[in-house]
């Protein structure tokens, strides 16, 4: 096997085509009306990263308020309402504007058709419509913060959300619109995977990234409509008092939680499955080894998608569910550990005796393995009834889901961004600085969230803007950690953007990947491939003689 080519040389490559998807047509209008999945992917990437920045700023403000037990930030007074708005905006922006749309909208939009050897997604115009719906939803969400304020948390729990005076109606309308954006993306990917695979590519010849995103798309299509109608009911309850969630007029507040988590638990898997999908690409590529247990990982993705629909009750162990229901939901929740474990063990076994090289994407992948192990295992604590009653609504929960959503999904996202950056832009980034960001990210993340497990198990409740003095050392530690995370992300932005200043230098296949996106030029031509690629070997075939291009 050749070592990865990280210099500017294009060893063994065809000459770089003059026209590619970036310079084929010019002008802002050609971008705004494009139906090219690659350009839409880039626009989604820019949009979701702006949202990430915004949500990140609110996260830093939350941590800054919690630096000391006083209600102050840099000496300024922070009221409970202000703090509530900070964490609501952080949560709502991160969940609905960043994590859910980011990997599907940006990286997947770009890579999935290439991996299948297709010219585009099944419905290119729907793809663009999905992006514009995202824009509309984002504008509505941001408008709801500017006009008024939302202080319900991203979960919009009743009865608070039906009684608080904030602009909850506009915010939920925004999330409704964003939901349809997500549905259209998922619908598009399902149709693409079913109908646009390259000649000779069967279901089990697809890269595992595609399996992961296919499972994600199934959840997007099946769960999001329920969230949509739930939010419509919430809006109507606020505006017309229809009497479904508000107990003063004969409704049932817990019903909202059931409806909400029926979507939002599967939504958690809309967040994590894309992360796992990326990891399934990074690990074999940088271990130069065929993935271990291909079918097991593929089936694990699908079964995670299915199990996600039957565990929502574990969010409501203390919300007045019947005892039978809590026991059943607790037992079902443990099922999640099986496919998750299958994946982790298969990734580790892939690395075992592999020819591992530690470029930035692989460092992020290894960070993912460790962080996901912690995030996943602490989920078991919370799925266990007796411990959950102690840990409900504490920082333990906060730490747990940050390890999964951020420590796993965002880690994989950043790793995937480094991995496909040369393909998307035609430029190699500075490898050494990329590695530095990965190390900083890992340190900063653990510094921020490991103390929160301890805080939570000692009784620090979530969503409080002050705390007992005894918690201050751990809170301060966590806040300093959040600065390291911020530093790492700004450095990542600098490393990637700096690469755009130089002329295109990336080879077609800088990492020695075996999936089809590496067969086309970097950056790809508008129609993706000069000739229709045909499947020649199974994915992740690293046996020496098979790689002869």
């Amino acid at each position, binding site marked *: 096997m050749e070592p990865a080519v990280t210099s500017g040389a294009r060893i063994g490559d065809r000459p770089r085509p003059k026209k590619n998807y970036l310079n084929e047509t010019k002008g802002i209008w050609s971008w705004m009306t494009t139906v090219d999945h690659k350009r839409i992917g880039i626009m989604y990437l820019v949009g979701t990263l702006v949202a990430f920045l915004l949500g990140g700023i609110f996260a830093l403000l939350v941590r800054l308020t919690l630096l000391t037990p006083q209600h102050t930030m840099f000496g300024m007074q922070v009221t409970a309402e202000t703090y509530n708005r900070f964490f609501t905006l952080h949560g709502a922006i991160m969940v609905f504007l960043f994590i859910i749309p980011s990997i599907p909208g940006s990286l997947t939009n770009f890579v999935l058709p290439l991996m299948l050897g297709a010219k*585009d997604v*099944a419905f290119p115009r729907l793809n663009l419509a999905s992006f514009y719906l995202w824009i509309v939803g984002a504008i509505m969400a941001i408008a709801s913060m500017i006009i008024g304020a939302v202080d319900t948390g991203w979960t919009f729990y009743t009865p608070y959300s039906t009684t608080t005076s904030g602009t909850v109606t506009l915010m939920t309308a925004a999330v409704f619109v964003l939901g349809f954006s997500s549905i259209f993306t998922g619908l598009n990917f399902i149709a693409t995977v079913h*109908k*646009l695979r390259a000649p000779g590519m069967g279901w089990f010849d697809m890269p595992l990234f595609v399996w992961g995103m296919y499972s994600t798309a199934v959840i997007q299509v099946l769960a999001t409509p*329920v969230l949509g109608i739930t939010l419509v009911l919430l809006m109507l309850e606020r505006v*017309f008092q229809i009497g*479904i969630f508000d107990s003063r*007029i*004969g409704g049932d507040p817990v019903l909202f939680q059931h409806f909400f988590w029926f979507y939002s638990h599967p939504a958690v898997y809309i967040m994590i499955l894309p992360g796992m999908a990326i990891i399934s690409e990074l690990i074999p590529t940088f271990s130069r080894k065929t993935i271990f247990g291909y079918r097991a990982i593929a089936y694990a993705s699908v079964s995670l998608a299915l199990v996600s629909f039957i565990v929502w009750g574990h969010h409501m162990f203390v919300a007045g569910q019947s005892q039978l229901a809590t026991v059943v939901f607790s037992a079902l929740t443990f099922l999640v550990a099986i496919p998750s474990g299958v994946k982790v063990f298969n990734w580790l076994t892939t690395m075992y005796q592999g020819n591992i090289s530690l470029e930035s994407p692989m460092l992020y992948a290894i960070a993912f393995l460790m962080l996901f192990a912690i995030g996943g295992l602490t989920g078991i604590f919370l799925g266990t009834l007796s411990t959950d009653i102690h840990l409900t609504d504490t920082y333990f929960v906060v730490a747990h889901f940050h390890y999964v959503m951020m420590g796993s999904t965002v880690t994989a996202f950043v790793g995937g961004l480094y991995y496909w950056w040369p393909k998307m832009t035609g430029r190699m980034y500075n490898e050494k600085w990329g590695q530095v960001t990965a190390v900083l990210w890992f340190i900063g993340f653990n510094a921020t969230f490991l103390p929160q497990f301890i805080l939570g198990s000692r009784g620090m409740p979530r969503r409080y803007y002050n705390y007992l003095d005894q918690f201050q050392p751990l809170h301060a530690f966590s806040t300093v950690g959040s600065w390291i995370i911020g530093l790492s992300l700004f450095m990542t932005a600098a490393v990637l953007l700096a690469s755009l200043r130089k002329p295109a230098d990336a080879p077609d296949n800088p990492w020695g990947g075996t999936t089809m996106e590496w067969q086309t030029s970097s950056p790809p031509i508008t129609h993706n491939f000069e000739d229709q690629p045909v499947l020649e070997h199974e994915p992740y075939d690293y046996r020496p003689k098979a790689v002869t291009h």
Partner: protein
Amino acid sequence: MSTTTTDVPSHGGHGEHEHNPYHQHHFTTMEQQFDTSKLGMWLFIVTEILLFGGLFVGFGLMQHRYPREFIEAHEHLKQLIGGHPFPLYGAVNTIVLLVSSWTMVMGVNAAQTNQKDKTVRYLVITILLACVFLVIKYVEYSHKFHDGLLPGKFYSHQAEDLIKGTYGYHTFFSFYFMMTGLHGIHVLVGIVLLSWLAMRARRGDFTSAYYTPVDLVGLYWHVVDMIWIYLFPLYYLIS
């Protein structure tokens, strides 16, 4: 690859020499394009059913909570025919929609078999039936408005049988207006889509080689019809 499309005319994409103007570049054949569009439509229908599904579940739970109130309230959806309460508006509308589904099928069939005038005619009849449905719905809504049988906080029924302020009555009418209203919006969208189809059909866009939009809107129209088939007994025939 696909063997599910027995009704696709065979000469659509095989003739490499004549390029169909509706053939999109990223599909190899017209059959692949048709199959993909149809799969996309089915997926969209799944989301529609789940959207309504949330409301059906909500209705079911609230009916379970207020069984007596829901039954009493639903009597107001009926009219006295020869001294017996009968769901006149609902029953007539059910028949109207069922007939429109049949005319839709005939329209799709006409498009598949290159009968331009017949396609237009059946599409126009379908549109007219959809309008009849909405007119009847309008009359029905007017009666409810007049009686103060309104959703949520607007509920102001004065008669003694359904006392204002009693839990359940206003909830019933909330769900009634939400579900029939959402369904009505879908009928309205259907009218717009069918009108667009009728115009394109008149222009001669549809042939046996390309009739995808007619087929897909047909599917949509049947789903709108089917949802009503469930709404009708749920609201008008509970006991």
